[in-house]
């Protein structure tokens, strides 16, 4: 660390920036993912980008790596204005990206993956398989991986797959390396290896943009930190001038009260009792011996990072995933086999995380979507009663204030927030006793978020138990009467409202052991 241009570690905000995103604006339909962000990646430094889910980090990186184009704004690389119409063009200028979601081909070998789309050719114009193997081995040994380049990627553990993804980018000539949550699937030692490689890259004057949620990790490796919130840049500073509390404060920003303040409802009996719930997975259990309860009138938040097992827990509760052990009791009755219809009848209902994939039937109207779970009850004789359908659907539209041109409009015509309310309306029509909400505010604007919270609060007042998953600190802290923290499939903390602090949540979400917290 003593030689090389980047070794001085004398970082300040005026240092030269190799890549600048100037005044980026990006809108999807009516949703603004970025609202005029100017982000600088300083030359030869590790530039950390942080922010909560939906803050715009991934969108910013997609534009810088050519996967998407900004609605307005320009990219300045090395002093020149450039334009990337595809990832290939960005790559040609030396910008590589390691994606958060693996973008590997599980059915191909490690070497094939590393050279996918840029195969080398020998003199006979055939793929040079030997050269592929040689270079793949070199890239892997740089990452201290002793795996054969002929191994099928699908056969590797997920952490190793992540390293293959990293090897793929490193085997190309990158000047700027974007890493979007590269450690989410890595073990502690694998993270150490990655950081050593990053140190090497820094010595080679490679500029790194590093996106992460894990405070301790990025504080170890980062030189600069830039904070995004709700599509805008709110702060940037050399890492040495910051501390954890400051970063969290910048990320969360708004005081919790401005989002929504909940007054706790009267808490009743336990409605949902989960004990020792386990869902097997590779390499470790997706849900690992989880026990908790939810009482009537209580809003329980589950906080955790991506991949912590929160969604899997929700899916197991509603019955789309099969548990290998443990019990789920609703009002004292064991839930039995995993059939969604039965769980709904017992009083559970789920608003899923991905409303496009799991929530909406895009081809159908708002009315059909809202009524989907209860159409069987809306008949007159054998036929559906148009009048009753209309009444019930309109009732829900008014209760939840869903903004629609008419209940017969295609559900795809609605904004994200209103689509979410459609899914919520459907769940509520099954008259649940326990409402499960998985990231209920994902991808919707602040106004709609507040409304969703108001609805959740109203439901708790009416005696429902509400269990919701969120990756946003402000949300769980503002809304939950009790917070469960999940990490690596386990519950690592169970905190009543008045004991919750940002620091506790953050450290519990990075821990793999249950934290000893007095209740």
């Amino acid at each position, binding site marked *: 660390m003593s030689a090389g241009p980047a070794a001085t570690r004398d970082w300040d905000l005026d240092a030269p920036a190799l890549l600048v995103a100037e005044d980026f604006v990006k809108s999807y339909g009516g949703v603004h993912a970025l609202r005029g962000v100017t982000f600088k990646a300083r030359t030869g430094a590790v530039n950390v980008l942080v922010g909560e889910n939906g803050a715009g980090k991934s969108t910013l990186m997609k534009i810088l790596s050519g996967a998407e184009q900004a609605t307005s704004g320009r990219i300045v690389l090395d002093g020149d204005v450039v334009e990337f119409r595809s990832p290939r063009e960005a790559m040609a200028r030396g910008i590589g990206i390691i994606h958060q979601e693996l973008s590997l081909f599980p059915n191909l070998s490690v070497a094939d993956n590393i050279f996918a789309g840029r195969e080398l050719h020998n003199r006979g114009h055939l793929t040079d398989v030997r050269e592929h193997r040689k270079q793949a081995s070199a890239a892997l040994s740089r990452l201290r991986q002793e795996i054969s380049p002929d191994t099928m990627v699908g056969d590797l553990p997920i952490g190793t797959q992540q390293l293959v993804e990293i090897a793929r980018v490193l085997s190309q000539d990158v000047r700027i390396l974007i890493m979007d949550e590269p450690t989410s699937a890595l073990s502690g030692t694998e993270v150490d290896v990655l950081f050593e490689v990053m140190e090497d890259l820094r010595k080679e004057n490679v500029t790194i943009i590093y996106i992460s949620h894990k405070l301790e990790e990025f504080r170890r490796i980062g030189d600069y930190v830039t904070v995004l919130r709700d599509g805008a840049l709110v702060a940037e500073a050399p890492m040495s001038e910051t501390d954890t509390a400051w970063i969290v404060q910048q990320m969360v920003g708004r005081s919790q009260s401005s989002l929504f303040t909940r007054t706790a409802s009267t808490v009743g009996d336990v409605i949902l009792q989960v004990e020792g719930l386990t869902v097997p997975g590779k390499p470790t259990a997706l849900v690992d011996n989880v026990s908790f309860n939810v009482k009537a009138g209580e809003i329980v938040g589950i906080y955790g990072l991506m991949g912590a097992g929160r969604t899997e827990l929700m899916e197991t509760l509603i019955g*789309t995933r099969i548990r290998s052990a443990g019990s789920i009791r609703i009002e004292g009755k064991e839930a039995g086999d995993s059939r969604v219809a039965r769980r709904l009848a017992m009083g559970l209902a789920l608003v899923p995380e991905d409303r496009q994939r799991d929530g909406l039937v895009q081809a159908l109207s708002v009315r059909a979507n809202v009524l989907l*779970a209860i159409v069987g009850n809306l008949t007159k004789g054998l036929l559906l009663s148009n009048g009753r359908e209309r009444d019930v659907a309109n009732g829900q539209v008014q209760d939840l204030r869903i903004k629609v*041109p008419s209940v017969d409009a295609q559900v795809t015509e609605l904004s994200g927030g209103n689509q979410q309310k459609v899914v919520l309306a459907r769940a509520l029509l*099954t008259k649940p006793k326990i409402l499960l909400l998985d990231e209920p505010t994902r991808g919707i604007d602040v106004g709609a978020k507040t409304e969703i919270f108001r*609805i959740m609060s109203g439901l708790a007042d009416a005696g429902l138990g509400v269990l919701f998953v969120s990756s946003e600190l402000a949300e769980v802290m503002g809304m939950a009467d009790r917070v469960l923290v999940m990490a690596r499939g386990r519950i690592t903390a169970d905190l009543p409202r008045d004991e919750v602090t940002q620091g506790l949540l953050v450290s519990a979400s990075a821990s793999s052991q249950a934290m000893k917290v007095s209740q």
Partner: protein
Amino acid sequence: MNASPETEAKTPLPVEERRQPNTGARVAMLLLQGRTLIVLVVLIAVFSLISVDYLTQSNLLLMTKHVSITAIMAIGGTFVILTAGIDLSVGSIAGLSGMISGGLLYEGLKLPGGHTVWFSTVMVMAIGILVGAAVGAINGLLITKLNVAPFIATLGVLYVARGFADLRSGGGTFPNLAGTPARHNTGFDVLGVQSWFGVPVSIWAMVAVAALAIVVTTRTPFGRRVYAVGGNERAAELSGIRTARIKIAVYIISGACAALAGLILTSELGAAYPDTATTYELNAIAAAVLGGTSLFGGKGTIIGTVVGAFVIGYLSDGLVLVGVSPFWQLVVKGTVIILAVVLEQTQERVKARMAT
């Protein structure tokens, strides 16, 4: 449910009023749905210009009679395609049902003891349709319980059902289905030969099946669930819909419709041949697709499918009537199917562009 306390909605929703601006979109939707109908009208116009015999009452009735077979099969197939499945076995099911029913009329049911049991005509028809429904149930069970892809499951059943059709007679024909009054099994010709009020019974059958199918798809909870399963199976499941049951049901419907078509064909021919309705599944699928049913599921109408069946039938018969060679008939038929789908894709793209 009291989810929104205190404050009133700032803009109360004038639902009735705000339906107004949707009219334009509805006209566009109607045009979209009418696309196949426009093709049909053009088709009729062109052929009646070429041949004076095309647009005559007798020819229209004859062509529509042919259409009824394809339409009935395609209506059943539409249920399956709406769930994002496919049923390749309908032609074979039609053949098998024809052979089962034909055999019962011709030689009765031979029991091991040397006895022969005879069934009345109505019973014979009912058994034929039940056989089709049962084969459909096998399709559905293979797909839902054993996780066989619909294409493969029904392809396998296509061969198996055809094989059993051959096995029923050892590959031969049941040449005489007239029956005898003493056995109460006369009158099987009602389906394929007779007319009521001057219209062939098979056309009445098509109208009845279509009417029933329209009601089921648009006005019953089952119909709504069929669309939901095809549109988004995961969402349907989370809504408590038993998706496996819905899928099994649509294959049963498809099998029963195919069997009815098989009975009509057999009745029309006056004899049961084991290779009846071979490759008819392709016409059925083409009719559904021409009518705007999406092979990805969730989108499509029964009316569209019926119009699609008319396009295929009127086109085929028209080409024969004006004397186009059988080889060119195939080329024209295939081209029209592709063009119709290209047109749909174009209109979908236009629609998407208008929406944004």
